[in-house]
């Protein structure tokens, strides 16, 4: 086992432990903290895939903005007495469905041979990425910024207190 693989298994284990914490923890704040752990570990996975830019964006946007927003949502919608039942009555069915999905997907993934697989990871430089993003994908990029603006305006209008509230 090379050192690369050792690092991968460590990072993957942290990711999965974080994910388990998110879905199994009974305390909603603990869930959010596990989510941060998992998201940072995913940034590590991106580094192993030689996608440094994505790793940086991951830490900035997920590790920073998204988790803060989720913690805000928790703070603003706090119910006085914590609900004793955090999972609905559909929990066993959910477990079955997710387990079945996991089993079939892993079976499908491991029994497929992917064509044209490279045997050396080519590090994609920031310059290359920027070139492709702003030349070949310029219109989707602009549409993405429009989506962000529309979401922002929509969020403000939705969350604004109406008169008499």
């Amino acid at each position, binding site marked *: 086992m090379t050192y690369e693989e050792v690092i991968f298994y460590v990072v993957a284990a942290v990711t999965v432990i974080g994910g388990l914490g998110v879905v199994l923890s009974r305390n909603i704040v603990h869930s959010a903290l596990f989510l941060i752990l998992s998201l940072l570990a995913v940034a590590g996975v991106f580094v192993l895939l030689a996608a440094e830019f994505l790793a940086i964006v991951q830490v900035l946007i997920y590790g920073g903005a998204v988790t803060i927003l989720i913690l805000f949502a928790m703070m603003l919608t706090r119910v006085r007495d914590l609900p004793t039942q955090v999972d609905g009555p559909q929990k066993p069915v*959910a477990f079955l469905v997710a387990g079945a999905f996991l089993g079939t997907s892993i079976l499908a*993934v491991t029994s497929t041979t992917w064509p044209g697989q490279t045997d050396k990871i080519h590090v994609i430089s920031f310059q290359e*990425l920027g070139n492709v993003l702003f030349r070949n994908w310029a219109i989707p990029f602009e549409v993405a910024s429009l989506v962000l603006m529309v979401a922002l305006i929509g969020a403000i209008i939705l969350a604004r207190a109406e008169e008499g509230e």
Partner: protein
Amino acid sequence: MIPLNNFLVLSTILFSLGMYGVLARRSAVMILMSVELMLQAVSINFIAFAVYLSPEQFTGLIFAIFVITVAAAEVGLALAIILRLYRNKATANVDEADTMKW
């Protein structure tokens, strides 16, 4: 060199965890967090395929950037909707938002 399958299996596990969370949880905020886990799994998949199968084009990498953008917009909007739900029903529990249930 880590085999491609390792990344795919990791992303499958993460996606299943998110799926379980979405189906089992009652709080809207918890469902939102589980959706984030699923989006992470999708990003890992996109990037792994881009790096291993088409390193010259890396379209998957571009897609992962868009996934992150849309996820940011989604979290903002979801927060606004949860706030509105909380203001109308005094709860963030999705089971109680059943006005349109037939």
